[in-house]
């Protein structure tokens, strides 16, 4: 709690930050000088330091979303120099200033998507992702009705693959990075997680139909397999999940309409 380390490596940076008062206001990029940034700071701590100063200068501190600061809650996320979550393929909170060099000008903007309206500055409304889950991103298992956990063995490979997909933190970087503003990687991660497990089979068709329907109703774009999403995804959700979603959806439509 005391003693900052070595200050000889400190950097002077210039930030250009998107400032927007509220959802209906216009925004603009505003410049700030941030001197003496320690390379050991996290990106958000650097913003904290700037905000402390802005507060004392009677300026409005920059609003940004964050909570766990350890890369798991998915709350944080800004576009840094045009790249969602910045240069290190991690969450913004896990990005450290040692990834930058003295004198850098860093451009910071919110996620941009028609389905993520800006709330203020760098904060956006990602409720659309929750609504995609509401549409079908679950297994219906009312409390108390479950059989013994060992009643249904799950092949380890399936369990591991389901886990890989289940690690999505719902940050929305995929949407911010996708040139089409598609949330397909997010949606596909859930389809894959639940679709690989035996417990997820009964609702598999309706799940994909409902979730894709909601994805589109929210106004997200379609996926044209550009792959930026997976390249910035802090949890490395695989692009194959999207192929899987497509197969599931086409299969579900076939079985729904063949009847």
């Amino acid at each position: 709690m005391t003693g900052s380390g070595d200050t000889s490596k400190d950097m002077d940076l210039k930030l250009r930050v998107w400032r927007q008062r509220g959802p209906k206001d216009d925004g603009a990029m505003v410049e700030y000088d941030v001197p003496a940034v320690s390379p050991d700071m996290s990106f958000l701590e650097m913003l904290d330091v700037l905000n402390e100063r802005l507060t004392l200068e009677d300026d409005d501190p920059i609003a940004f979303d964050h909570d766990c600061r350890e890369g798991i809650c998915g709350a944080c996320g800004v576009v840094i120099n045009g790249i969602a979550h910045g240069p290190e393929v991690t969450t913004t909170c896990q990005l450290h200033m040692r990834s930058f060099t003295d004198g850098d000008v860093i451009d910071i903007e919110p996620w941009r998507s028609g389905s993520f309206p800006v709330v203020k500055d760098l904060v956006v409304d990602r409720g659309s992702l929750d609504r995609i889950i509401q549409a079908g991103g679950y297994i219906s298992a009312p409390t108390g009705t479950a059989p013994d956990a060992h009643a249904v063995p799950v092949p380890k490979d399936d369990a591991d693959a389901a886990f890989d997909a289940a690690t999505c933190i719902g940050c929305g970087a995929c949407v911010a990075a996708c040139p089409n503003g598609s949330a397909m990687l997010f949606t596909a991660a859930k389809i894959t997680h639940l679709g690989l497990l035996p417990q997820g089979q009964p609702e598999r068709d309706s799940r994909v139909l409902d979730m894709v329907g909601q994805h589109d109703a929210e106004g997200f774009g379609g996926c044209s397999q550009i792959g930026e999403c997976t390249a910035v995804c802090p949890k490395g959700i695989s692009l194959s999940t999207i192929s899987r979603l497509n197969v599931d959806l086409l299969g579900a439509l076939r079985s729904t309409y063949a009847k």
Partner: protein
Amino acid sequence: MTADSYHVVGEPIRDTKAPAGDIKDRWDTRRFEAKLVNPANRRKLSIIIVGTGLAGASAAATLGEAGYQVTSFCYQDSPRRAHSIAAQGGINAAKNYRNDGDSIYRLFYDTVKGGDFRSRESNVYRLAQTSVEIIDQCVAQGVPFAREYGGLLDNRSFGGVQVSRTFYARGQTGQQLLIGAYQALERQVAAGTVDMHTRHEMLELIIVDGKARGVIVRDMVSGEIESHFADAVVLATGGYGNVFFLSTNAMGCNVTANWRAHRKGALFANPCFTQIHPTCIPVSGDYQSKLTLMSESLRNDGRIWVPKAKGDARPAADIPEEERDYYLERIYPAFGNLVPRDIASRAAKNVCDEGRGVGPGGLGVYLDFADAIARLGLASVEAKYGNLFDMYAKITGENPYQTPMRIYPAVHYTMGGLWVDYDLQSTIPGMFVTGEANFSDHGANRLGASALMQGLADGYFVLPNTINDYLADGPFVPVDETHPAAIEAKQLVEDRIATFLAINGSRTVDSFHKELGQIMWDYCGMERTDEGLRTAIAKIRELKAEFWRDVKVSGVNEELNQTLERAGRVADFIELGELMCIDALDRRESCGGHFRAESQTEDGEAMRDDENFAYVAAWGYGGEDGKPILHKEALEYEYVEMKQRSYK
């Protein structure tokens, strides 16, 4: 001065809901005796649930499914981001899938003993009983627990117990469990049984005719102060470790909901019981905003040491073997690096206090894998701990394969919380408290992988079987915004916000929070003394006065205003901090995570005083300038014999 000058003693308190009889049957008995609500009537009954962590989301999903009208709140932009998401290690359950001698009774026994005999036997036994159903429920929801090649669930041993009863999902168990509960919750949102409000912070409780009937929340986007009403209120608002500013908790974790309820009459139990986790990444500078936990599993293969000489600033590699002090192995030869959390933490503090700490500020000890790498090979160490090593490298910029990691203890969990009875009902009728927010099951020290278990037990199984006993008397008389109690509560919130904005002082909210944290860490952290606690109380009182005189909150209420949000939380933390110190001062024994320097054995181990302190300290609010009122709930042990812990 005596301790008494800071508080007054009130009537003893008793849990009237736990049935008597054989401990194995108590939960059955209670479920049988509790009044039921018939399904048709449930639609007419409403429940407010604040918090969407494991405890809140599971309760909302279950009660929504049961047919009640549920309204749910969280301060994040999505219920999925509650801090339960961050739990790494795993969740305990007495499944005995390993056939290694585990049983409900053993889990019960371990938990009571691990809690250093400051928890209730009835509650803990029920927790162990329900643990079994939790795993079933989660698997049915699609939680991808680790599995073995045969397709069955894998288990590991965790937190120094001798059986393998911990279910896990890589290092992200909390995330997977929470997503399971979140999905169940969202399913109910779609079904219309749960009305979900994100970015809404509860700032006040509404009590009508002595019953909890609603909450005042602030819409964090528009600033609107809203009143919501229901037949019962559930707080599932998590722990208050952030009173220390630096902790492994998320930045937004707070005590506000609980503290507001406390000020309205809910007793706050054992506030000073905090758990300090030994393996966290040390602080690197003044700007530091939070501390990151490194999984405890690292202690299985890493060796902990510091230089023998004070102020030895050589790089680790240059310190020869004979000049290193593997202090845990030296002091606790039987358990070595695997001693329980509180013991490992205190030992690290001691060596650093002696001036032998390493890294910036001398607040760190080495966790060295050189031996493990030599013994097991680099590849095997990498396979086991690779992701943790990567995380460490990312945060510190150092390569832990080459130089030993530096670790230091950090505040991690709070065992204290609002007092509840066996039904999880607080001292305010109609207000229930679940998860880390209540004090119930862990006594003075929580075992690893037991918090997730408790949160889900409360939310999926306990509350849904006890809240009906209260609701069966409802629906209660309708109340709305025009009720004097609602008007008053709302006014209170609005006035407070207006005050924050009007002070326009010269210090930031965070500067107060950091100062409070430093006081708490120095005097109410790993080691507490009579004198230190008195100093702390005086300092906190000064800090409080200065806060209300000199804090600077910019902006207005009618917008997203993160400074304003923090100001409210810090104001409550300051008051809580004082109560924690008062509680710690009164408890002149050492137990679990609470170490009073005055109460130790000759060789420096914690010494309980069962004669005088085998009670839950449940504190009543004493008014703005009054003294808190101590109500004691006596603890009796019929099944587990009280023994002094020893890890030598």
